[in-house]
């Protein structure tokens, strides 16, 4: 059953060939079997998932109307608010947090009658490209458990790759859907900024964040995007444009497709096997009638530097809300967080093994604390309140989050604002203009999604700059606000997936999906599965 695409499973459910309860149980069994090693999920509640599945089966039997994902299990990245259920962002800061409302994306999944099968692991607050920044434990790449799955939506990518969920929600601020999709051999789409409502997505960098679908195929991404996309009065940056019926057009190949190959993407730093796989993919497109034009994005080389100013600036501002007062961790009051980060122990109730994990009781966080708080010894700017802020944030955030808050605070501080933030905003426009010019001549830009296949866990943990440079092909998509997808296009000699990156003009997701699907009709890389047993 789990070899089937989500699209096929939805059809079988609708035809009554399988029940949602059977299907959900099949995925739960795989989670139990594999997730002790992969660690894609932070929490799975089998009882709740099965109850939801049985309810949908009952409604189907009774002939009631059902949504477009009726009975299909979907995994959700733990950065999307779900009312009354933990939403941790893989951070100690939010370990006890239970949102008072649903994110619009989650509400839409519920309205589409999807079965919410579990919450996936991620880099803390979606900051990172390897999933090693989760405060709880790193996720492992199902193709090689000693390697990273990519990040920050690494749990979602690993869950789909290991067939522990047919579809998953991810979020992408600088490549966080596409990088793990590429490294885990699945399909993942970052929609145009404004295509999907961000309401209830815990903010990292508000001008860059987007929610998107992750699945085995472009067709599966179309199925989920159709549910997610659309205007939402709760997000003023969501755009009021009609949502195309992606599922109806996705299987129609693009005729006379003009592809752009960016000269600068094939330079130094690109792994030879990735280079070869991408060029082979280009030949596949040519055999399907596409024309290929070499072009230049002259400001592409500035994208990583620009991104690592703008994203930390927005992050430092967004994460100022974690003050130990309204919600989240508070030093001396909340349960003490354990040591976070890579290779650290996992709280006993979330221990290895079954893959079924439950958060600890949050009762202590809710009751008023009886003891008066210690007064800080400092004076002036370092009074007891500021001391409480500083301790809470230092104990609640992990190293990468602190690093980005520090970079952003520095770049926005008096005397540096023009040199860093304003400068970056100007380069951001130049990057966008490069794309606008390129898309006058080509329909889609094609290239590698990451410079190499997945690296080893721990390999780059002490070198943040090397980690940032891994994002070089993906960040410009977010800076420009355009759309892009990663689909599998090969395996390295070590058996690791290689991702193909397609980028489109804003709001051309339909073109992107059709372009990706025509490749998948001609190749079988998307059917390859990791050697888990």
């Amino acid at each position: 059953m789990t070899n089937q695409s989500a699209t096929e499973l939805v059809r079988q459910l609708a035809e009554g060939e399988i029940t949602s309860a059977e299907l959900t149980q099949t995925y739960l069994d795989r989670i139990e079997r594999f997730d002790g090693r992969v660690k894609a999920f932070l929490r799975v509640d089998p009882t709740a998932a099965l109850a939801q599945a049985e309810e949908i089966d009952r409604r189907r039997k009774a002939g009631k109307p059902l949504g477009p994902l009726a009975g299909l299990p979907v995994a959700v990245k733990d950065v999307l608010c779900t009312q009354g259920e933990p939403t941790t962002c893989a951070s100690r800061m939010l370990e006890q947090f239970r949102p008072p409302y649903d994110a619009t994306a989650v509400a839409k999944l519920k309205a589409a009658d999807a079965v919410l099968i579990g919450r996936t692991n991620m880099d803390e607050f979606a900051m990172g490209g390897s999933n090693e920044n989760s405060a709880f434990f790193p996720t492992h790449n199902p193709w090689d458990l000693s390697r990273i799955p990519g990040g920050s939506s690494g749990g979602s990518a690993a869950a789909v790759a290991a067939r522990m969920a047919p579809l998953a929600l991810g979020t992408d601020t600088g490549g966080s859907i596409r990088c793990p999709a590429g490294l885990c051999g699945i399909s993942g789409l970052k929609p145009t900024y404004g295509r999907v409502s961000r309401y209830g997505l815990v903010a990292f960098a508000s001008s860059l964040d987007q929610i998107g679908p992750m699945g085995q195929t472009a067709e599966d991404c179309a199925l989920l995007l159709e549910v997610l996309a659309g205007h939402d009065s709760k997000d003023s940056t969501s755009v009021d444009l009609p949502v195309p019926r992606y599922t109806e057009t996705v299987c129609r190949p693009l005729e006379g497709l003009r592809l752009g190959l960016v000269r600068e993407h094939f330079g130094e730093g690109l792994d030879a096997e990735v280079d070869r796989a991408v060029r082979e993919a280009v030949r596949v497109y040519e055999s399907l009638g596409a024309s290929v034009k070499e072009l230049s994005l002259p400001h592409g080389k500035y994208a990583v530097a620009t991104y690592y100013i703008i994203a930390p600036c927005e992050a430092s501002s967004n994460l100022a809300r974690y003050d130990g007062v309204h919600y989240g961790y508070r030093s001396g009051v909340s349960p003490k967080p354990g040591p976070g980060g890579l290779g650290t122990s996992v709280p006993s109730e979330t221990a290895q093994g079954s893959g079924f994990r439950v958060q600890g009781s949050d009762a202590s966080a809710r009751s008023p604390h009886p003891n008066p708080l210690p007064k800080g010894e400092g004076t002036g700017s370092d009074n007891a309140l500021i001391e409480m802020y500083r301790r809470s944030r230092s104990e609640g955030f992990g190293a990468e989050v602190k690093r980005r808050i520090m970079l952003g605070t520095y770049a926005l501080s008096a005397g540096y604002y023009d040199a860093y933030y304003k400068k970056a905003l100007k380069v951001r426009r130049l990057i966008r203009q490069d794309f606008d010019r390129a898309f006058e001549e080509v329909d889609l830009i094609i290239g590698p999604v990451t410079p190499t296949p997945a690296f080893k866990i721990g390999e780059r943990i002490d070198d943040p700059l090397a980690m940032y440079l891994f994002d070089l092909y993906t960040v410009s998509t977010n800076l420009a606000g355009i759309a892009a997808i990663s689909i599998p296009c090969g395996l390295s000699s070590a058996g690791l997936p290689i991702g193909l990156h397609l980028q489109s003009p804003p709001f051309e997701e339909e073109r992107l999906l059709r372009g990706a699907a025509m490749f998948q009709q001609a190749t079988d890389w998307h059917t390859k599965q990791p050697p888990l047993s």
Partner: protein
Amino acid sequence: MSISRAEVEKVSLLARLRLSDEELDRMTRQMGDILGYIDLLSELNTEAVEPMAHALDVANAFRDDAVRPSLDREAALANAPHHDGECYLVPAVFDEG
């Protein structure tokens, strides 16, 4: 551009973080590496370029000024680490006497 340990310590106050000595050393080195890389942008002349804060050209989105229910107090306090059922509680900020 490099950054000194004293500057990093000052920024940590602005950011409401408290870094240990070891963290300060590491942060100084890593921020120096990253800022050094970011210096790449200085080779670009951007004098005539308008800053782009946002990918969309959307104007302010207004809604009707209508009264609608908001989060009730119990729900708003439910996640607070320290409250008295009516208010959020914080450490005192004024000295007594």
